[in-house]
């Protein structure tokens, strides 16, 4: 399994530090922007965990498939 890549980690930590200028023709609302940053940090963390969980699951299911294929071949050779 791959370890968490440095760039993703950096981007993740940057979530609380990147400054921005609010633009756009619709008013985004100060309170909405503030809570969005907090919510995005929280659910962004869950999102990263979800991605790595999927990678773990697919890593093990791939291993299982690889084990299963030779077994079938052996069975077929008999």
């Amino acid at each position, binding site marked *: 399994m791959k370890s968490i890549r440095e760039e993703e980690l950096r981007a993740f930590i940057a979530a609380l530090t*990147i400054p921005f200028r609010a633009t756009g023709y619709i008013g985004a609302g100060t309170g*909405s922007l503030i809570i969005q940053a907090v919510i995005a940090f929280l659910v962004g963390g869950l999102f990263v965990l979800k991605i790595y969980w999927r990678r773990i699951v697919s890593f093990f299911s791939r291993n299982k498939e690889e084990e299963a294929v030779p077994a079938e071949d052996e069975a077929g050779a008999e």
Partner: protein
Amino acid sequence: MTGATGILPGSFRDPSGFLFRRDGALYRQVNQVYRDDFDLMLSSGLYDELTGAGLLVPHEAAAIEPFIADRSYLVIKPEEVGFISYPYEWCFSQLRDAALATLEIQRRALERGMSLKDASAYNIQFVRGGPVLIDTLSFEKYPEGKPWVAYSQFCRHFLAPLYLMSRRDVRLGSLLRENIDGIPLDLASRILPFWTRFRLPALLHIHLHARSEKKYEQRSVDVEKMRGVSPTALRGLIDNLQSAVRKLRWKPAGTEWGEYYGETNYSEAAFQAKERIVRDFLARCSPTEVWDIGGNVGVFSRVAAAAGAGTVCMDVDPACVEKLYLECRDEGEERILPLLVDLFNPSPAIGWEAKERLSLFERGPVHTALALALIHHLIVSNNVPMAKVASFFADLCEWLVIEFVPKSDSQVQFLLETREDVFSDYTRESFLAEFERRFTIEASEDVTGSERTVFLMRRR
């Protein structure tokens, strides 16, 4: 729809461009200020990806004079939408699918370095049965670290009404009609059941969101010092909204979908006879577009659709509209648009100058209207005089397939059980007199096994 030439009254808010008509054809002027974003949408491959997936309305370059030349970058001709519908006319699953389409568009845009700068439900229309973004100018270059500027709008236009419809009462979707820029989150937070505070998506995107908006309503904050949102966190936000919307469901309480068909006094033979008559009459008037008024679960809308007509099936019952939409979606029926319409109180014109969103009837007239098993509801349930019923349809359509239901019919008797019979003009003679003043009767046929008659009429 609108006049043959002029800027569309609902298209003024976004400085990036606007829609206009010239000689009846629809165009969109793209302004100079939007040049870089428009070019990026094309060069990034986002336009091809979204139009290929049926998520964005396609356009072609139009070699015509711009409407306001000194601001113009170019003019495009978008594919025209058959019938414009509004979020307060959608059933639960239509709004849900529109929300999911918006989030999917935003997810794909972020992957290509762009972001939606608005998330208005009015930017989504149902084209060939599915939700499509019709505002080609909704994208902007995504600068890293910037939060999603349309997040609040998405929550007001989609999330709040979906939560209210799913977790409190489906009729609360009509709040969208009162609140043209979406349901205020503090209002949604107050109406939602208390237990929704213990569900993470509702807690975050509705309740805490509403509190934060209230808290900072009157406060000044230095935006330069505000914290941003990393690309990963923003992807997480979109992913979380997607899973929140996917989990929302609605089904009418205590009923099964199969129970939904309003007409109960037809025998199977009479029902088939009526279906055949409607099919024959529609073949005679060759409709391009049909409005099935009071269409229930769309049995006769299907007959119209099979005849090749784009059909809008209007009914007041949210369960009927939901059932028909889900069936059409699952079957791939592209010609029927089910809509929630209360004929006794139809969608008014709303918004700035009461011109931004058209009333239901400003979106007509229609080639052919179906008014089957309807007249007794208009006259007995809503006390509309026969003359007004006839003039209503004369304004609405060129061709009319209408069923006359006599007072002796069991359905009419049922309506009269709880009210005094003050409907002296509800007779076949009065019906014919009032309608023949405005229509010529092209054909009529009694429905075998019932006391009813179906007429095919053409406006004089």
